[in-house]
């Protein structure tokens, strides 16, 4: 399974004041707050970690059908600006994050092999929803394929997994 989340940094600046009293305590663990305060750009770290939690939550929500607001239970294990794992009640999700000056974008997966099988959707793709969970109907097989959609401010990202494409793994040099 896959999940994604994009943060438009300009809009986030307008919408949220992460320095508001109580804000970080409600959504970030002690370890995550340490990462934020130690970073040269705390604001970018806030949204980097937040997008990981959101992307992982989308998978968790599908796997368990549990809907709720529990950001502290989605714990980020930060490896680098781009890589990490999010753990939620014993479930682990690998995350890959892209950081630019305009946005932060995270893709979470249940199996790390999925990263290379991810296909971006066109913004005009026909998205259906059941219980607020999105999918598309494959035009050839007519089978419902799970997708993950994220939209924030100027940015829209939709992804699915392409299982049929032959996978070419690069061998170590």
């Amino acid at each position: 399974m896959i999940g994604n989340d994009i943060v438009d940094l300009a809009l986030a600046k307008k919408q949220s004041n992460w320095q508001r009293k109580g804000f970080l305590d409600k959504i970030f663990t002690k370890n995550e707050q340490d990462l934020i305060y130690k970073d040269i750009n705390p604001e970018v770290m806030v949204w980097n970690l937040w997008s990981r939690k959101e992307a992982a939550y989308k998978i968790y929500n599908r796997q368990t059908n549990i809907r709720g607001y529990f950001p502290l239970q989605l714990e980020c294990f930060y490896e680098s600006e781009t890589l990490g794992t999010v753990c939620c009640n014993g479930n682990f999700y690998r995350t890959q994050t892209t950081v630019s000056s305009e946005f932060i974008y995270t893709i979470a997966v249940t199996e790390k092999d999925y990263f290379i099988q991810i296909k971006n959707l066109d913004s005009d793709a026909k998205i259906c929803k059941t219980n607020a969970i999105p999918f598309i109907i494959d035009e050839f097989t007519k089978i419902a394929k799970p997708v993950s959609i994220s939209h924030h401010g100027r940015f829209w990202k939709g992804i699915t997994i392409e299982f049929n494409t032959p996978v070419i793994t690069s061998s170590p040099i």
Partner: protein
Amino acid sequence: MNKEQTIDELKNIVKPYIVNQEAFDALTVETDFINDLKINSANLVDVILDIEEKYNIVIDNESMERMINVKSAMEIIETKLSERE
């Protein structure tokens, strides 16, 4: 405190964060903060902090988990207020 009053107060609290005006105008106890009002998930923290400030209550993590629609928000406010008395 009566329910209508709480709904009105809650409407004032969520107003700055809503994206879907139509759903806001038609708000009922069944209205979902994220799916209907399209409140950004990071702004849900602001809604929770605003509720805490307005009613002088503390919303613990367990209660926060359920804070996804008007109905649970009202229940949580009511419970926390009664615990305080």
